[in-house]
């Protein structure tokens, strides 16, 4: 009996987690895009696009580790943007 309850609880947790992810999938994608753009703009120095005055960049650079890693990851995936976008929105 106890095992059944445990199994049910585990299943419910899995279900709960899945549903939570389900209900935020698009939003999380959007978040990543926003963070990526923020990173690109503030780190424009390194990629040759117009960037904020150096002062601003230098101030926030120490806190941008996550943004930098997102930017690097996104650049690596630039050869398959089609796949990313198409896979996010589902058509059927």
């Amino acid at each position: 009996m106890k095992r059944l309850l445990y199994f049910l609880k585990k299943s419910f947790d899995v279900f709960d987690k899945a549903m939570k992810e389900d209900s935020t999938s698009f939003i999380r994608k959007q978040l990543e895009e926003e963070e990526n753009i923020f990173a690109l703009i503030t780190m424009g120095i390194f990629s040759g696009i117009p960037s904020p005055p150096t002062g601003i960049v230098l101030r926030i650079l120490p806190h941008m580790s996550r943004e930098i890693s997102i930017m690097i990851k996104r650049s690596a995936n630039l050869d398959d943007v089609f796949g990313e976008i198409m896979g996010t929105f589902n058509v059927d």
Partner: protein
Amino acid sequence: MSSLIVLIGAAFYIVSYFTYGKSLERNVVRADGSTPTPAIRLRDNVDYLPAHKFVLFGHHFASIAGAGPIVGPAIAVVWGWFPALLWVWFGNLFIGSIHDYLSLMASVRYDGKSIQYVSGKLMGESSKYIFEVYVYFTLILVVAAFMGVFGALASKSPAILTASTLFMVAALIEGQLLYKTKLPFWLSSAIGVALTILSIVVGFLWPFINVPSLNTLYWLQFIYIIFAATLPVWFLLQPRDYLNSYILWGGVIIATIAAVIAFRGFSWPAYTGFSAKVISGQPSPFWPTVPLVIACGALSGFHSIVGSGTTSKQLDNELSGLFVGYGAMFMEGMLSTIVITSIGAFGLVVFQGFADKIAAAGFDLAKMSSDATYFGQVGAAVINSKDVGIGGALGIFTKSFGQLLNVIGVPVKLGITLGGLWASAFILTTLDTTNRLARYAFQELVEPIKKVSKGLHGFLTDRWVASILAAAFGFFLIAKGGNAYTALWAGFAGANQLLASIAMLTAATWVKNVQKASTGMLAAVLIPAFFLWITVFSALIWFLVKVVPATTPVLQVILGGFVVIMLVLDVFLVINFFKNYNQGKKATAKA
């Protein structure tokens, strides 16, 4: 009979899974449980993160399931329930599920990159572009086809229209609850589900939104698309999509239970004729045209994109791939099986309910019941006739569905509303996402124009212009196309199957050049790939020659144009395939 079919279907799929499926896994994919998948190797907890295989199955299934597995079979039953069922079972087994599974696994072996990327690597860069063209056309056509199908349904069913509109409101509220308040998740979800049920019940009891005009419905959908696709995702799309999965699972469970308990014989003809008038009122030879009718449920190119888009990045173990990719496709086959069962058992009951209108419209209902060939000639006309008022393919489905649920005690009209909301919820969500995708695909496609005219390019790629263009295209096709949704559906399905063709050919190339499978297993992939290619190619030629000329001038030009372009590209594709195939071109799959 109904229960029998459902159980046989289930058995068929289960046995196939463990025999054919496992064989594919062992000998073709050579799934290795000890090789880390991209979800583990490239884990970043945003795109790449391993998901529990049941969860991934649920996600993947919810992504590939939509209105497709419902609409297709509902049109195809005019051939009789038996041929439709055959395609859903065997088309799925020999082509569809292999297509889904291999696309998924090929993607997994390429770091979770899309099947488009893989096809570029294995079959040359031009196939990437061809892919995009197909996708864009598919997106336009699916908008037109869905607008038509929904219009046909909603114009005859205020209950369903009311429920759909209320459901949209429910989704808006759910969005606020979930993302803007601190309510616990389970509570917001429960409220959302409750509101959904409420929409169905209210639609059933007080169908106050009544729009019988098809044209008005098209306009409404057009405006809806433009707005919905420009709203931030959290506002409507995300909560809608979320609630849709509850509707899906609820619907599937209820339908399965009802179908199994029903023990109802099939009054619907088993076989009405090889060339029953299925597509656009034209005699449609079952081969090669059935893929133009039943897409999802048996085979759908879009699944390869879904599978290689997100699913492949979340696969926790190569051995889970079979369950997720292959299994989910089988599940969709089951869904279509239930749709066919529902119509098979209760379709004629529905017709009986419309006996007067059918007679008034000049059809002989008694003859339909006794003469299968006659049925094949007029069945589609009866279903689509505005005077009879059944409401098209979704109409016959929802009304049969209502009868089916009645078996377990649900009032018929309530069951109809539930079935209707199920289909329309997915349709309306698809219209939204399709527009967003079409915007993006369009920008990719017109890239070459930049060299010719920067101004024109700038105009075309403006967010609003691209969005309105995509929606307008679809709207135009259905509104000025004579409401020929079966023709448009066939066009969509054709484009979809061409996508499947590329994916299958890519998979075949992968299997031969990279996996180096044995000849036997290679045949298992190659033969379906070619069968598919030949079938779809012939079907589209048939379509071009028989269906398009009989439509309105607008459709002749646009739809015909699309088909011609797709056929030409298809030839290039196959030439490309042979070039890369015979060169034994080995593309390194990243380990």
